[in-house]
């Protein structure tokens, strides 16, 4: 039975490798950094300016998890909610390359880098998205790959490719 919520959204067959989704800019204020850190990452260098200045980050910086959360919020609202998403499998090669400092404006791109069929779910495909998040100076602050399940509209007519595992990445054969 087709899912009525996603019936009119783009499915696996409608996507192509190379599509780029722009992630809207967000300015990360001191208050946002404090609020997030109190909830999820209460390390001194995310909560206290003196401790932050003395730390490896050399100043008050957001949790890397906050950069990740804000990025995924934009990907979810701006892209995953426009396709027949069936949930995330995970992330690979997450790199926090530079800290997000107070009042930095972060934005980025999400690029579809791979499309493959799921081995364990015949009516699903797996979309790989490369995320590249930058600050207002154009410096890369976070990169990672994300794998997400997506419904196949006509499973019988799309050829199954040999894919050994359902994992966030097809590298190194992580078990499903």
């Amino acid at each position, binding site marked *: 039975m087709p899912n009525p919520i996603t019936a009119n959204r783009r499915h696996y067959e409608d996507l192509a490798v190379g599509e780029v989704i722009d992630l809207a800019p967000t300015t990360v204020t001191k208050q946002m950094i404090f609020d997030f850190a109190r909830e999820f990452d209460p390390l001194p260098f995310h909560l206290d300016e003196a401790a932050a200045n003395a730390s490896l980050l050399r100043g008050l910086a957001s949790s890397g998890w906050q950069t990740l959360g804000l990025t995924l919020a934009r990907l979810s609202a701006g892209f995953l909610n426009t396709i027949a998403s069936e*949930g995330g499998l995970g*992330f*690979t090669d997450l*790199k926090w390359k530079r800290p997000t400092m107070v009042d930095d404006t972060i934005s980025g791109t999400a690029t579809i880098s791979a499309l493959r069929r799921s081995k364990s779910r015949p009516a699903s495909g797996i979309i790989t998205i490369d995320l590249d998040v930058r600050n207002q100076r154009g410096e890369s602050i976070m990169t990672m790959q994300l794998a997400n399940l997506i419904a196949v509209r006509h499973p019988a007519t799309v050829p199954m490719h040999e894919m050994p595992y359902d994992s966030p990445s097809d590298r190194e054969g992580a078990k499903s």
Partner: protein
Amino acid sequence: MTRWFEDINAGEVFPLGDHTFTRDAIIAYAKIYDPQYFHVDPEAAKLGPFGGLVASGAQTAMVGQRLMVDALFAEADRLRAAGEEPGVGGPSPGGDKIEFKAPVRPGDTLTYSLTTLGKRVSNSIPGWGVLSNEITATNQQGELVYRAVFASFLKLRGA
């Protein structure tokens, strides 16, 4: 806020504690960070791929981060109580193989654990070491729902 690099042993397991994911907390998180219908709308979620509401995978990961930080502070308190000076930790440069292996549903209680897989002295930052830490979470049925490996900086003693 933890031990020194020299005092960490590869293979050592640190329990990080439990966390119960309530329906309200799942929805509140997802409204901000992952507003897909199967994370925010219990009725619509029944028609979706999980047959009901599930937590955003990133929420599972972030709860693990919070539990880990709380455990680091507890370890520092334990060392101080024993008359020892706690070590100094730094930020994480990243992670890999962050896998959401099974859905987390309202009412599920996850048990988190950290295992240090390995450690090395940093090449890029003098005076610091880098740990490779595996974080896992299993649900109340003993099913592995989350597994990830993160790097983190930890100061060398006397550096």
